[in-house]
């Protein structure tokens, strides 16, 4: 419990620090939100009115205290561009992104598990070679290229799936495949190596000597031990997914937090970008905390070591 509380406190501190850094970094970035609301020829009086509306005519510290005071009360402010509370924009977009990310992560986990284990058991087999090919292509091919290829073939040519948007479950297929492809190679490689190491352990030799079936040895005994490094990679993949999801969301016009961030950045929508940064940081920190806690579930030795 003490460990959990300490980790929570750390998480809050990290998120708050990120919020402060993002606040100042945004205001140091070139680009005036008021100017970007209008056209080239917008009158100065209109621009001044926008500045007053946004609060960007106030001194920097005044803006900061207003922002931080709101943050402590759970108020992320109002979007410059959409003129609605940031929370109202963020929550649906976050839900869409988490859905896509979760599908990609689950798919990559199962594929990495299956292909990684099979590849480790028979390194020269067909599955191992296929997995190797996927790994090379997946790590070489940029996400946007894979996305465009999928759209070109499955949407434009075959017309099996929509090329973008979120109109139903079919809209999730192509972007989740693209995202899965971006994180699968690293997971597969880690699991393959980890399983190979475990397969050379004494307890495996013993299990074989006792006549246990290979499948049971691999997927029940070896797999659980080999899972630890994979969980570390999955924790890192959260960050990769959060970054990659921006690309996927733009290419697939998917209404998630990535495309919202891009719109916000183009408009210098400070409250929106701050809100996204805070929520993304909180999500990332929380997921890593969950992964850390899962270590203790998967490997009792870690739990005992912590208790000691």
């Amino acid at each position, binding site marked *: 419990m003490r460990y959990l509380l300490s980790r929570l406190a750390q998480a809050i501190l990290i998120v708050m620090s990120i919020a402060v850094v993002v606040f100042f970094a945004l205001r140091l970035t070139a*680009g005036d939100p008021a100017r970007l609301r209008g056209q080239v020829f*917008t009158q100065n009086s209109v621009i001044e009115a926008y500045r007053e509306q946004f609060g960007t005519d106030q001194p920097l510290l005044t803006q900061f205290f207003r922002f931080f005071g709101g943050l402590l009360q759970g108020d992320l402010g109002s979007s410059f561009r959409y003129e609605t509370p940031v929370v109202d924009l963020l929550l649906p977009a976050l839900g869409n992104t988490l859905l896509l990310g979760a599908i990609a992560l689950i798919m990559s986990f199962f594929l990495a598990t299956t292909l990684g284990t099979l590849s480790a058991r028979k390194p020269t*087999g067909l599955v191992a070679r296929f997995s190797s090919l996927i790994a090379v292509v997946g790590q070489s091919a940029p996400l946007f290229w894979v996305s465009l290829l999928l759209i070109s073939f499955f*949407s434009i040519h075959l017309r099996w799936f929509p090329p973008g948007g979120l109109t139903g479950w079919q809209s999730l297929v192509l972007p989740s495949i693209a995202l899965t492809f971006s994180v699968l190679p690293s997971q597969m490689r880690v699991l393959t190596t980890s399983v190979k190491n475990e397969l050379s352990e004494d307890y495996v030799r013993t299990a074989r000597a006792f006549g246990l079936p290979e499948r049971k040895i691999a997927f029940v005994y070896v797999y659980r031990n080999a899972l630890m490094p994979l969980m570390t990679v999955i924790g890192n993949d959260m960050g990769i997914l959060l970054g990659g999801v921006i690309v996927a969301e733009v290419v697939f016009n998917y*209404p998630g937090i990535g495309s919202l961030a891009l719109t916000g950045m183009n408009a210098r929508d400070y409250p929106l970008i701050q809100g996204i940064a805070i929520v993304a940081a909180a999500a990332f920190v929380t997921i890593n905390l969950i992964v850390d806690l899962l270590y203790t579930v998967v490997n009792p030795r870690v739990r005992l070591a912590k208790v000691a």
Partner: protein
Amino acid sequence: MKIKALLKKAPVVVVAMSAAIALAACTSAAPEAEGGVSGQLVIANAEPVTAAYWDPAASFGLVDDQVASLVYDTLLSMDSSGKVSGNLASDFTRVSDTELTLTIRDDAKFHDGTAVTADDVVASLSRIMDQERSLAKSALMTPGTVTADGKVITVVTDEPFGPLENSLANVSILAKADIDSPDNFKETANGSGPYKFVSYKGDDITLEVNEDYWGDVPAIETVILRYIADADARNNALIAGQVDIATRVGPNYVAAVADNSDFSVETVSPPSQLVLLEQHNGPLADVKVRQALAFAVDREAIATNLMQGVNAVGFNAIPTSLESYSGADEKFAYNPDKARSLLAEAGFNDDLVLTLATSTLVPSQLEIDQAIVQYLEEVGITVEVTQLEVGEFRTTYNTYDLSINTLASFNNDPGFILATFVGPTGEAVFHFADPAAEELIATSNSTVGDARNSAINDAATYLWDMQASLWLSDETWSTIVNKRVLDYERAPLVGEPLLVNAHLAE
């Protein structure tokens, strides 16, 4: 044998996942075009609405004007050729250079059921014509007063104002009650137009037909205005049938559908130009240097090779699509020798250095800027190029000697574009202040009737001859339309007021 063995051993989940995807592929029909026979039309836009604040006077923007043109009425309307006629005003008369009377119809209602009255018209126009207010659309009008006598509205401008009728085809009529309680605009757009505002969720603005419209009720039941940021995603959505119309499409995408019989390209658009903005607070303050740049750059080659011939090259300071356009005598045709000669006269001998900001604001901007740099370097001008992200570019362009931008008219009147070169706007955009230009532009704005075209031409030609900036070409706002949308046409305005005439194929 090995494969059989493998299949037997493969975990069920892998096979099940593959089967699920295959099943989805087989059972899903071709992605059902959302604008199918259900009477729904989807328009894909490259930008979102400026703000979820439905006051059409508060901002300029492509989507803002689309919503305004469908949800609100204007006193006058404009057809595809730019001809102005009555709309909410059943007739109108230009009484004098400063006075216009309009008779409003008595059968129009706002979507909340209240009648459109003279008070609503007076309030809508007065707030725009009050130059003290910082409403964006005040740029369309001029100071003056608006009064009503029964159904007759009298607009009196402080000075003669030539674009008045054109502007009235662009100024929306709002309910006085909403003007008095601006918070209402946050909830909905309460107009009297052919479509009602339904919702703004995510990237979609949904409008539905107004069955009680005083005019011809549109044939298309629902219109969705969808923001798709990425140009490729927009194009994919169009080709896959997810959207029916894509607005402001770049020349590359126009060329891509040239041989595709499923689509047509609509080129009627707001008068607009691609301009190389030249800042007059540095070496470009010298007219000889500016004219040298004009001779140094082969605009026709750029238009042909980098814009796929989509954009016309003009020879004056206003777009060629305008009635008042007339090509100037001096064409500034590509002539590097003449450019070098002018530079020498200005005192530069291969030692002129200019800064240029480039970005991706307009289609092919990077390529066009690259070509311009090469042309300038051929005549001995060194160009220091800085590539900026779009947001930074839009804010800091005027700190660089050269930058490309778009100048468009929101009311199909050249005055709107020429106004960029005067007063505080001229200072802000170009660091430009020329009393002669101000006088000519003011004269063109205050000239009414048949003499106006001549006055506009004088002002435009003056700016052109002194090369106040380098006019690269017109900028055609191409619209790609799925052929299932019949009788689609555009007015030379930013919005879609003529969408009401369209219908969907059975």
